[in-house]
């Protein structure tokens, strides 16, 4: 019994590390005298440790393949392990990049970091869930910590409103998710993925004709779509992006999407693999609506944060195209999301860095001021924008290419044409930023507006994060091929 339990613990060792780290941080509130850069570095360290632990199961690497534990409610397959790897690596980057912005403000407290670590724990757990119990609890763990974090720490005027909106829409969507789970439970009488899969195999005909099935999968997709910011469950996105602090924005913009997408892929390939094929129209609908709505919303948007929000929705539409059912397991969507997320983190990180330098980059037009800082940043930003717009040979292009290829191979011509059309529209708003960066004239009397006293350069995290965002930018730009062959 104990042996079994210990064996099972191997499945969650990285979650345990994360949880432990979060708890230690909570304890540290008792000893408030810490240098400011300790907490972000500590958290990054914890995540990296979790990352390392993920790949060092006590036995050999293969022993974890298809391994189940805790009464088969958790499973570690190579696919889920790799998703968790991406998730933790991105989380470390996000925290490193976000760290610098946080330490600048006086309101740094370890609680914030423990919340982040709990949220990451939830995300990692979600990716190894083999049971709706675990999935639900992990999803809530990830989301609730994020709601709290958005409200907990704010650097703008409207963070509380953003948190409120995020929370309420999130709560509604998670009750939709639960409703979906309830219907599926009602249909199959099981919450465990393997059992559901077996029952599906046995009685797929009866299941597919039952109204519970439509209701269940519809509600389920809605709940997951909310986390992935797919239209029409995305209306919170621009508001929250605009109001949340940079750190929260980075977390919201990347982690839940990655975790939920990974979970969706595992779900659709696993227990729902038999009915996955039936979802083509629904997913096409989500994809096309997201792309169109996101692109249209961003097209005339002046506020940069909102623009990134709409752009996120449009990009998730492309991810959804990659999620369209095909013959074999396609990672086109995950590939796209990774490329997009890295670009997103790099853009937000660079912009936050420039804002800390004293530039006001609220609106798109404000990007003319970027020419007041070293040229390299402007070039990086422009390249990132080109990458987001999907201009070859940058990474964004390969992401789109792989997604379209996947869809075309399986005959989703309409989605591909819509995607190409939206790519053209979306190029407009990315190029507008480049126009501001390179071609618009500086307003008169604003030369030399950069604050004379930039950030205290002594912060280690600060330098690291700057490095990290530049590095991420480089990754998006240079390692396009590496990512596109995943």
């Amino acid at each position: 019994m104990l042996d079994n339990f210990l064996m099972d613990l191997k499945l969650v060792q990285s979650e345990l590390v994360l949880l432990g780290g979060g708890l230690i941080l909570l304890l540290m509130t008792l000893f408030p005298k810490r240098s400011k850069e300790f907490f972000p570095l500590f958290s990054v360290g914890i995540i990296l440790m979790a990352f390392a632990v993920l790949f060092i199961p006590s036995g050999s690497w293969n022993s974890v393949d298809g391994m189940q534990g805790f009464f088969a409610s958790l499973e570690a397959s190579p696919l889920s392990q790799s998703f968790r790897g991406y998730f933790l690596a991105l989380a470390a980057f996000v925290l490193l990049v976000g760290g610098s912005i946080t330490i600048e403000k006086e309101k740094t407290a370890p609680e914030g970091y423990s919340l982040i670590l709990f949220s990451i724990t939830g995300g990692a757990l979600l990716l190894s869930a083999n049971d709706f119990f675990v999935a639900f609890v992990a999803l809530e763990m990830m989301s609730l910590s994020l709601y709290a974090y958005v409200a907990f720490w704010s650097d703008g005027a409207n963070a509380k409103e953003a948190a409120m909106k995020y929370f309420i829409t999130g709560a509604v969507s998670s009750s939709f998710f639960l409703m979906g789970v309830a219907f599926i439970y009602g249909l199959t009488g099981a919450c465990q993925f393997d059992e559901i899969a077996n029952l599906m195999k046995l009685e797929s005909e009866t299941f597919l004709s039952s109204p519970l099935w439509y209701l269940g999968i519809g509600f389920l997709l809605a709940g997951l779509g909310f986390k992935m910011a797919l239209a029409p469950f995305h209306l919170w996105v621009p508001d929250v992006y605009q109001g949340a602090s940079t750190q929260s924005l980075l977390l919201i913009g990347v982690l839940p999407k990655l975790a939920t997408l990974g979970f969706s892929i595992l779900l659709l390939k696993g227990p729902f693999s038999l009915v996955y094929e039936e979802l083509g129209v629904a997913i096409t609908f989500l994809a096309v609506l997201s792309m169109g709505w996101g692109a249209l919303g961003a097209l005339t948007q002046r506020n940069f944060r909102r623009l990134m929000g709409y752009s996120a929705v449009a990009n998730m539409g492309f991810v959804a195209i990659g999620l369209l059912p095909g013959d074999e397991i396609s990672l086109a969507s995950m590939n796209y999301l990774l490329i997009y997320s890295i670009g997103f983190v790099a853009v937000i990180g660079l912009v936050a860095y420039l804002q800390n330098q004293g530039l006001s980059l609220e609106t798109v037009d404000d990007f003319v001021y970027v020419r007041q800082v070293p040229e390299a940043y402007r070039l990086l930003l422009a390249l990132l924008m080109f990458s987001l717009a999907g201009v070859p040979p940058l990474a964004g292009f390969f992401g789109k290419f792989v997604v379209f290829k996947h869809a075309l191979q399986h005959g989703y011509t309409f989605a591909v044409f819509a995607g190409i059309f939206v790519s053209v529209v979306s190029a407009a708003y990315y190029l507008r930023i480049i126009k501001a960066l390179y071609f618009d004239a500086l307003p008169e009397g604003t030369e030399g507006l950069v604050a004379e006293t930039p950030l205290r350069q002594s912060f280690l995290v600060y330098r690291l994060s700057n490095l990290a965002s530049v590095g991420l930018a480089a990754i998006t730009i240079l390692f396009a091929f590496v990512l596109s062959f995943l």
Partner: protein
Amino acid sequence: MKLFLKLAVFGPLISCLFAGLFHRQLSKTALIRFCGFFMGIATLAGSTLFMKMVKSGGAFAVTVPLMTWIEIGDFSATWALSADPLSVVMIFLVLVVSFLVHLYSYEYMEGEEDLSRYYAYLGLFTFAMLMLVSAQDLLQLFFGWEGVGVCSYLLIGYWYEKESANQAAMKAFLVNRVGDLFLVMGMAGFFYLTQTLEIGKGLSLLQSAVPEPFVVLGTPVPALDVLGILFLIGAMGKSAQLGLHTWLPDAMEGPTPVSALIHAATMVTAGVYLIARLSPLYLDTTFASTCVVWVGALTAFAAGTIALVQNDIKKVIAYSTCSQLGYMFLGLGVGAYNGAVFHLFTHGFFKALLFLGAGAVIHSMSNEQDMRKMGGLYRPMKMTFAFMLIGSLALVGFPLFSGFYSKEAILASAFAAQDQYGLGPWVLSIISLVLTAAYTGRMLGMTFLGRSRADEALRARIHEPGLMMNFPLALLALGALVSGMLGYKKFLMGGKGFWGDKIVAPLIPHHVGIVELAPTVVGICVFVLALVVFRKWKEKKLAKSIGFMERFLVNKWYFDALYQALFVKPVWWLGQLFWVFGDQKGIDAIGPDGLTHKAVEGSLKLRRSYTGLLPTYIAALVMGVLLLIVLILFGGGRLG
């Protein structure tokens, strides 16, 4: 010798890079010193090569392989500099004229703001021209061919603020494109027949086995004739032969030294060079050679008549260039390839001299180019007059001047070839010779003799050019004087003498008889007559003397009007049609512009409905769920 060859070719490139890159750091004087230095070195190297070539009697060849340019399967194009008699002659001519133009420009272009741009273009042009003439490979030749075209475009449009200069540059570029297209087709045909672009190898292959005829529109045409015609049209574009000549007079919008270098001495002779280089190919053709003969003869005649009525001093010389190029083509056509190249060589000197002399006149007349406002310049500008006179006599073919020998050779060959082509080309060329004498005399008379027609203020400013302009003039005058006398024995040597097997060099018939002498005597008489008659300028006198022909000639045989009506107008209308109905009313309304408009509208509409009110978000969520359920219910499968 390899070093000399490299120096000769890359000197101008260094000069170009120098002028282009360091123009901020250097004063104008330093600039001309450096550029002149590099050009001087290159010219010395080129002259050494030339001397060596002449001394060895053509028995010397150097090849400097630089790199393999393209290598695909069996095909390879190498980049190599090679010196054989033909290319060394060209290298020498190009470098000497280019060097002198560099020097001359310093004074002529004084007061120009961005002189470095000018020198950079000049250097680049010289480099491209040298690449062209030192090529053993058609691809490299084409590279140089296009390079000189681009530089010509840039230099014609050097004063880019001037609308007319821009248009002239554009015209030169476009007309040259037509020729270039045919050159590329010729190259393609050459490659198709021989599987190589190497000139020597390909030509010997073509000679050893007569290729299958091409079938054009159902009738078989000898392959060599097709190639010959294609290369001929290519050459016609660059060498401004009748039909594709319209750009050359307009190109006079560029600075005068540029006209001397590019549009008289070097670039426009590239066509002649090309055909001479491919002379073994033409030797085996009848139709293509006949075409070359008639193109040359007609060009010589037509350009001569037009030159007769031009009032712009530069345009007179430009048409004269056209006409002389026609002579060279005539020479090529009748098989006197060595004669044509010899004429190219002497023409380079005396035409550059005439242009630079005209430049001196224009310079001292404060950019006045109209001969009707000149006159009587021999008094204040004795030196220039003397130089111009030497140039004119060489052009007219006065005995002992350089033009005499080269033109003589072509005329004699044309006469000798009457069995093959009849006497037509010869008669036309005799008429052209008389025309040449007439317009040259008219130009000299109107410019230098008689009374000054310039206004008082201008007259006071007329001056003799300075040393920097006189020195090149003097050197060129020397060339115009002696190049014929010294060169004709070598150049016109028949068989495998000087030219080796690089070009076909027949023995030029040379026996002074009434046939050769009469035209020369008539020419000289006409020259003197024109000199005297046009001493005084009266507006209507010319019109009366040639009657209805005058309008025809003033309008340049209506070539421009014809092209305007045939090509420019229809294309313009077509463009208008597509613009108005295709673009504005069609694509713009429903295409990108219209869609953009719609998209922006849609975006604003979408955003307006987005007030930030929380319940609407939930409403969207609920609607989304319902829609999804419906879609899963009815969709089941794939869309699209």
